[in-house]
């Protein structure tokens, strides 16, 4: 099946920040040429590595974020490498870069220069703070963005003296990469009518700052500050705990306030397990009384906690959902490999990995669709795997390529 970005060529200047942009575009059918330093993209050196042995071709984080791309290893700080990148950009549709402001201008690779030669080029600059401003040159990483952008400020534990928490998996970069890929798609749409590219500036800090749901609105409109609460939304005041341990030690996300429709099923379940106490009495048909007893130590809280201490998480999940409760299990990621539901939805894509002599299942990606296929077709490239072939495409002859590799400009 044809993919939506078939025919689009993306040149991606390798970096940890932007690699998700190229991955989504590659999974959507674009040809993504990653230009990386001859020592390898920073993304190749983060780990985890296969068998924990450092090897730029066996970095699993790199594997994930670079499916289907091609690798050209070039030292663009030296003139011949820079010239090769210029040739690639002369015919590219999209350029994705994440360098510090001013870096590419100093190399003559800024939008004004490159865009003048290829007016159709969409030049996508994904940076920590945008091209200018008082903080534009700060040193950041993914977790630093979650701190500065507000995610940590509302995430963590109910103890006011405990560390705020940031999530893992490059979530600041992921947020900004989704926003950038959306922007690039808008620019591609525009280009269909105008035949013109443009410059796109997406700041990771901006994206994080607007991605905290109600936190900013609480402050902007009600002057309310939030407290962090274990496993749930931060809010102006502490609420009832919703993270509860089940019989097998796994945690569940379970709210203990029950609607009129849910309550009979709950009473039945508690009766079966012998924990119902006086909760079957008619007076508990009053939602207000139930809510008053859902506090720590209240009759509802005690009984439901006891019930959960008798039932394994998966069983509790299924039973709770069957009576209309919006409860879930706090699963480790890999536990989802066992979930029939995702198998049934075709969520796993086998990708051949010769480095380990087998294929392994990759997440398909965000969307299930018979018509829109955005999923990985192949593995991440080895360092410099496509250097020669791509340099030939931009009309370097073998002698020139040889000279570039022997001088360390290309690999």
């Amino acid at each position, binding site marked *: 099946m044809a993919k939506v970005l078939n025919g689009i060529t993306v040149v991606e200047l390798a970096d940890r920040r932007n690699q998700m942009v190229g991955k989504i575009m590659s999974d959507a059918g674009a040809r993504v040429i990653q230009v990386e330093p001859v020592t390898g993209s920073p993304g190749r050196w983060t780990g985890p590595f296969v068998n924990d042995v450092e090897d730029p071709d066996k970095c699993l984080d790199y594997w994930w974020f670079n499916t289907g791309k091609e690798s050209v290893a070039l030292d663009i700080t030296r003139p011949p490498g820079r010239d090769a990148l210029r040739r690639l950009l002369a015919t590219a549709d999209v350029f994705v870069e994440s360098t510090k402001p001013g870096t590419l201008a100093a190399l003559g690779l800024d939008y004004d220069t490159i865009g003048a030669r290829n007016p159709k080029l969409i030049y996508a600059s994904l940076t920590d703070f945008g091209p200018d401003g008082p903080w534009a040159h700060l040193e950041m990483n993914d977790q630093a963005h979650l701190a500065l952008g507000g995610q940590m400020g509302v995430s963590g*534990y109910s103890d006011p003296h405990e560390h705020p928490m940031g999530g893992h998996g490059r979530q600041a970069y992921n947020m900004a990469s989704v926003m950038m890929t959306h922007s690039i798609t808008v620019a591609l749409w525009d280009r269909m009518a105008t035949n013109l590219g443009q410059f796109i500036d997406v700041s990771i800090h901006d994206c994080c700052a607007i991605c905290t749901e109600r936190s900013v609105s609480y402050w902007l409109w009600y002057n309310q500050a939030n407290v962090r609460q274990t496993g749930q939304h931060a809010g102006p005041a502490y609420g009832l705990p919703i993270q509860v341990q089940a019989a097998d030690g796994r945690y569940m996300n379970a709210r203990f306030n029950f609607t009129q429709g849910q309550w009979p099923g709950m009473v039945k379940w508690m009766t079966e397990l012998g924990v119902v106490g006086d909760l079957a009495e008619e007076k508990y048909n009053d939602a207000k009384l139930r809510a008053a007893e859902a506090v720590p130590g209240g009759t509802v809280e005690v009984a439901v906690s006891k019930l959960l201490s008798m039932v394994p998480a998966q069983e509790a999940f299924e039973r709770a959902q069957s009576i209309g409760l919006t409860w879930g299990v706090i699963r*480790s990621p890999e536990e989802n490999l066992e979930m029939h539901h995702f198998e049934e939805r075709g969520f796993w894509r086998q990708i051949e990995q010769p480095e380990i002599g087998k294929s392994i299942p990759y997440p398909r990606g965000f969307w299930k669709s018979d018509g829109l296929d955005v999923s990985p077709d192949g593995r991440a490239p080895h360092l410099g795997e496509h250097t020669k072939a791509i340099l030939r495409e931009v009309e370097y002859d073998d002698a020139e390529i040889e000279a570039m590799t022997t001088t360390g400009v290309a690999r």
Partner: protein
Amino acid sequence: MSIAPQGMTRGPLNGIRIIDLTWKAVGPWSARMLTPYGAEVIHVEPPHEPDDHRWDARRGQGITMTDHQVAHTEPGAVPSIPYYTAPYYSQIHNGKHAVSINTRHPEGKRLFEELVKVSDGLTENFSARVLDNWGLGWERLHELNERLVYLSTSGFGHAGELSHYRTYGPIVQAESGLTFVSGLPGREPAGWGYSHMDICGGWIGGLGFLLALLQAKQTGQGTYVDYAVTEGAMSLLGTYFLDFQANGRPTRRKGFPPGNHSEWPAVAPHNTYRTAGIDRQGQDWWVFIACETQEQWEALVTEMGKPELLSDPRFVTMKDRVANQDVLDEIISTWTAPRRRFDIMTRLQDVGVIAAVVETAEDRVEYDPQLRHRELYPLIQHPEVGEFAYEAFPPKLSRTPPDNSLRGPAVHEHDDYVFGQILGLSERERSDLRAEGVI
């Protein structure tokens, strides 16, 4: 009330018309990301039950959000306060048109089908079977309009054995693994203190919708995108799946999750450190500090006035520092504890060390110089609310910038435009439909 028209934004998506049946938070983003670029998004609400996100505290009127939530969730409760367009609604339904249609009424369904015929996309985030129950499942929609793109957003998707399971943001995060990978080692998961997958997850839906619309523009054929937000979240955790497959290493293991320490790359220091002061809620203030290079480590040690750490055998190499990071954290905490958080950030950044204050919403809105420079909180006007600041749509495109002057629509503000101009109903016909409760 006289309400100024909106939706006249010029942009690359002019001519694209979307029917938006979304509510809550994750769904609305998918269409909200199109309006700044000129798409015409028609947000459809039931006539007698507008979106609950219209409910919100009104500034200065002593009405709390709790009052609204109680009024709204009690079965059969009649709201005592008229619906209006709360500021947050302008955030997630920005730039949309609003109409009300009773799709359960035969005439309402017919009107809705007429709208489908002249639209490019439809998006909703109801439970899995709602549109099917209306008789408006994908097959019917495709029959009505083969160009139509249909994006459904739900926790577990519309196919599969869990498709009827109930979710909201935190459940999606819990089920996917996103909650599990955040927290201190040996403690219960910390998760995310907001519905991350309603916002980031909404953006992902918006991206899928736009890609599908682009494909329909190219091919003339619409498509159905079944977006399960749980799968969206799992697709943000790929490395953990690969580590499990290639190395057999589960995340459910001792010492995981690593708090704010970094495993990939394995670098130290890399943590949040307590500083002087507490916030308005009595919570400690924190600064995040990390050294990913030897130069940063040397600069940190110099700033702390502890050059002896450079030759301390516990901290000589990065590997040493990672192995002894708990001790190192204590040393750094002792230095940060009496100091002011922004001073620490500025001082360390001046010498090239990664340092970032754990900013609150107040910090970002009031004091963050970069966000001010980027104009992230512009003022917009709403006829019901007046002038207020909101969170802008942040990308900056040089030729087709997003329009950040738009606002959320009032309840059925655009009935006349949509039913009159688009569907061609006369004023008399609209009046009759209104009397019958169809619109």
